[in-house]
């Protein structure tokens, strides 16, 4: 084909420019280490990179959430561990007083211990996190969780809110736990059944809630507000007991023995009295006319229990009857302390479960995040050996094009004819 001189030169020039553009692109890839310099280079990969960057961002903040939650949970676990320790010490103290013959000075020192324990428990309930927030106050963390009223009663000021944080895509765990469930409203006695002796009792017997044989019966009774009165009559081997059920507090004027007698029989000291799913142990020998009130569904706060302990230790122990009353009060405190320990331990277990969950999830999110990073790098990063090989190829081609241009430029017939 006939070729014009202009095209001959322009064609060579275009080839030269194309080669230069290739070299330039490869140059940029080498300089930045990336093949994906503009979304137009690989639209699919560009969209994926945006998605992966977002995924990595989410996993990063999930991880940060897990770390923050771990710190908050560990603060909580630490405080609760101290509460447990205090309760164990207190309980040992009470047990030793309740079991032996205690001297007034023993009781005085026990009172001092109980008072300081009460103070420490209130302080622990008001534990603050690194940010100054009260850990156990629920959502109202800007005010102390508990405070002491002028009457000496310790009350809870927070709410039942527990915060959650996201530690993995669509997985939230609790990062705080409210003190309401831990310190307040703890079922009293054994299985929520509280026993108290009538202040006018003259015998040497105190009663304990031995256990609950029918939870449903006890629940039904507590829902209905039913309470029981155990009263004794006769003496010696003819001692009998009568259990009367009704509403209102037994032994008080308001007691209404609506359901009448639910159980009765002869009483042998140390034997159990069972009725309506409840098992009551009476220790010692009651006198005729002595009575005990049994209340299902009672609850008490941890602080109230310790205050009850102080009151029990302060009870006069002049007469045998007074010793028995004090013994009854101490036994009730022991039962309530057991319930409190269970409540604190189960809260510790809840926090521990969250901690374990965070730990296992974090390993997983770490791996996911690493995968996403690798995938992103595969999409974006230049394969340097390959790019360098292409680069040297392109350079050679560029040099060849330059050489060809120089040769073409020298080709002209005018140089050779001499008309």
């Amino acid at each position, binding site marked *: 084909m*006939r070729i014009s001189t202009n095209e001959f030169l322009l064609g060579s020039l275009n080839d030269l420019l194309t080669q230069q553009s290739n070299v330039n692109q490869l140059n940029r890839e080498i300089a930045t280490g990336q093949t994906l310099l503009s979304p137009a280079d690989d*639209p699919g990969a560009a969209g994926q990179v945006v998605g992966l960057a977002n995924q990595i961002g989410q996993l990063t903040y999930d991880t940060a959430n897990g770390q923050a939650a771990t710190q908050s949970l560990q603060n909580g676990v630490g405080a609760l561990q101290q509460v447990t320790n205090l309760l164990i010490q207190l309980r040992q103290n009470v047990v030793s007083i309740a079991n032996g013959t205690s001297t007034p000075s023993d009781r005085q020192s026990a009172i001092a211990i109980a008072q300081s324990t009460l103070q420490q428990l209130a302080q622990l309930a008001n534990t603050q996190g690194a940010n100054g927030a009260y850990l156990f106050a629920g959502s*109202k963390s800007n005010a102390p969780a508990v405070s002491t009223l002028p009457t000496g009663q310790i009350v809870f000021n927070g709410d039942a809110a527990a915060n959650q944080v996201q530690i993995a895509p*669509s997985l939230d765990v609790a990062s705080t736990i409210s003190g309401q469930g831990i310190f307040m409203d703890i079922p009293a006695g054994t299985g929520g059944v509280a026993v108290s002796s009538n202040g006018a009792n003259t015998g040497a017997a105190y009663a304990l809630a031995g256990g609950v044989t029918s939870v449903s019966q006890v629940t039904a009774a507590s829902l209905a507000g039913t309470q029981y009165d155990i009263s004794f009559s006769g003496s010696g081997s003819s001692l009998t007991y009568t259990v009367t059920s009704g509403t209102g507090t037994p032994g008080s004027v308001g007691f209404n023995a609506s359901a009448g007698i639910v159980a009765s029989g002869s009483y042998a000291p140390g034997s159990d009295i069972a009725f309506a799913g409840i098992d009551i142990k009476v220790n010692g020998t009651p006198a005729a006319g002595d009575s005990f009130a049994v209340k299902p569904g009672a609850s008490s706060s941890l602080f109230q229990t310790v205050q009850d302990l102080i009151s029990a230790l302060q009870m006069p122990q002049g007469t045998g009857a007074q010793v028995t009353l004090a013994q009854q009060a101490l036994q009730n405190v022991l039962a309530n302390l057991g319930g409190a320990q269970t409540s604190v331990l189960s809260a510790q277990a809840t926090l521990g479960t969250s901690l374990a969950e965070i730990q296992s999830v974090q390993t997983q999110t770490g791996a996911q995040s690493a995968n996403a990073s690798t995938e992103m790098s595969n999409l*974006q990063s230049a394969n340097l050996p390959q790019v360098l090989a292409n680069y040297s190829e392109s350079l050679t081609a560029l040099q060849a094009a330059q050489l060809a241009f120089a040769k073409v430029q020298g080709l002209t017939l005018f140089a050779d004819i001499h008309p």
Partner: protein
Amino acid sequence: MAAYWGAAEMTGITQLIDTGWSGLDAATQAMETVSNNTANVNTPGYNVESVRQTEVPGLPNGAGLGTDVTSIQRAFNQFVFSQMVGAGSASQAAQVAQSNAQNLAAIFPVASGGAGGLGAALTGFFTTMNAVSQDPTSLPNRQTFLSDARSLAADFNAVGGQLASSQASLNGQMTDAVSAINSLTQQIASLNKQIMAQQGSGAGSPNAAMDTRDNLVQQLGQELGVTVSTGANGALDIYTTGGAVLVGGGTSVNLTATSGGYGGGNLSITYQPTGQDVTASLSGGTIGGIISSQGQIAAAQNSVGSIAAALAASMNNQQSLGLDLNGAQGASLFSVGGPSVLAAANNTGAGSLTAAITDTNSFVPGNYIVTKTGAGYQAVNTATGQATSLGGGPSLSLGGMTLTVSGTINTGDSFEIEPTATAAQTLSVATTDPKAIAAASAYVASPGSNIGNVTAGAFGAVAGGSLPLGTVIVPASYFGQNLTVKFTSATSFNVLSAGNAVVATGSFSAGTGAQVAVAYPSPAPTGEVAAVTLSPGTPAAGDTFSLTPGGVNSNGNILVMTNLASQNLLSGQTLSNAYATLVGQVGSAGQAANFAATTAQGVLTQVQSVQQSISGVNLDEQAADLVNYQQAYQAAAQVIASAQTLFQSLLTAIAA
């Protein structure tokens, strides 16, 4: 001269001299042509010329009377030329589109590790929001989150601004191209006039004028795709691809760049004689490239704007469902411009149309033309051309938007709706107070010293209509008060106000429990309530749950807000995925533009090489021609010298 030789009836020596002379003359003219060809070797639009010689016939049975140069012709092929104009147009359009697509892609960078750009800003926004959920009481955390919200808004503004300036720059390019077109068509028409005059008078082929004009036609093709047809006496008639006459013989017609019938951001092109908007029928050249880029930039503006609008709507919505650090219902976090509605300039009714995006998740980015027809309103998507019937109004529903008609709109009146064209530019953070972030749940339920085993969960915001029939919903007027749920029996409960007045009574089932809700006041979405579930179980009469507004450490609402990062908020996509889709679309458009430009360039090179093989100057060829004609000249001169010798011999013989 030719006539003189042609009429000669000479024979012998005189004829010999005249014939030799004609050869000399033809060789001179041929060498002049070679000289002209070599001089114009680099002249754009020059077509190589050559002399056309014919023999001058002699007497019957006698020798011919020499040679005659009948014309100097340019090597030109109309078909190839038209192809070259078309290929030049297509290539220019592709190049303009490519360069604009590259600029567009640069607005959505893909930096190492996904850093930079809106995607990273969105992720950063949700990251610092999470820090607030970790510790809602921390003012520094809230401050950081607010700063990130501001920088996210600034990034949206920057992208919106870059897109708007791209649009403005396209408008500038269009104005320039239109004035270039008008000037070119005028010059072509005036050259047409000269050529027609010269051809008509039979004064020979006006090669230079034709070369110049054809070169101008080629330049015109660079600005706008045209079709060319040969008219009378060598004139060229030029039409737009849509068939409108630009040059007809010696007259030309102007185009104008104007803001379109709705006065939107993009310029349109009108045909001056009729005043008609012909933009849609134009293609090719700079103009064609601009028109396709306008569509891409508008699409990017709409998409990024819809992300901004969905972000603002969902965040503001969630804000209104929680409590800020002062315990008040959350106020809007972002403010963003709503849809713009542009009335057509030729509307006859005085009525107007307003538009609002009411559901971002069913909203699809795009501009619409809404026209009142005899059968009600009709919307046409400007990008896809898809038409939707909207009914008679006054409230119309269109793809997640609600349009409201006010006043009288006449049949035939139309409006352009640009729902999110400016949203990215107008996004801003509405508060400077870090306490204004509504992190807390509206309410927290705390049990009293209850005997029964019913428990309360956490409060959550739900649509009131989704709750079981008969659910107690406390009116919004009580929102923010301390409320108490108090069981009056195992199957019924009262909700008490802060003043212990019974505000509602509900029933409770041991098997399914119950739900209690408090209605949100405005600006929360209508019907939205804060609801809590009371677990199945048996309550005792007198059992209570106190419902108190979430305290400073409550993170219930911000937890939901952070989860919005993985919720489908826009057209069934998460915000991040919507952005990834946008980047993918911009990238695909850029890639397609690159391919198109390479292809168009290839076609052009091919056609150019065909054209050059016909019309280009080859210097080697010219050198050979030069040698050839030089030899012819020398030979003709030798003939005259021989004739002179013969004549001299004759004179000498006579004298002797």
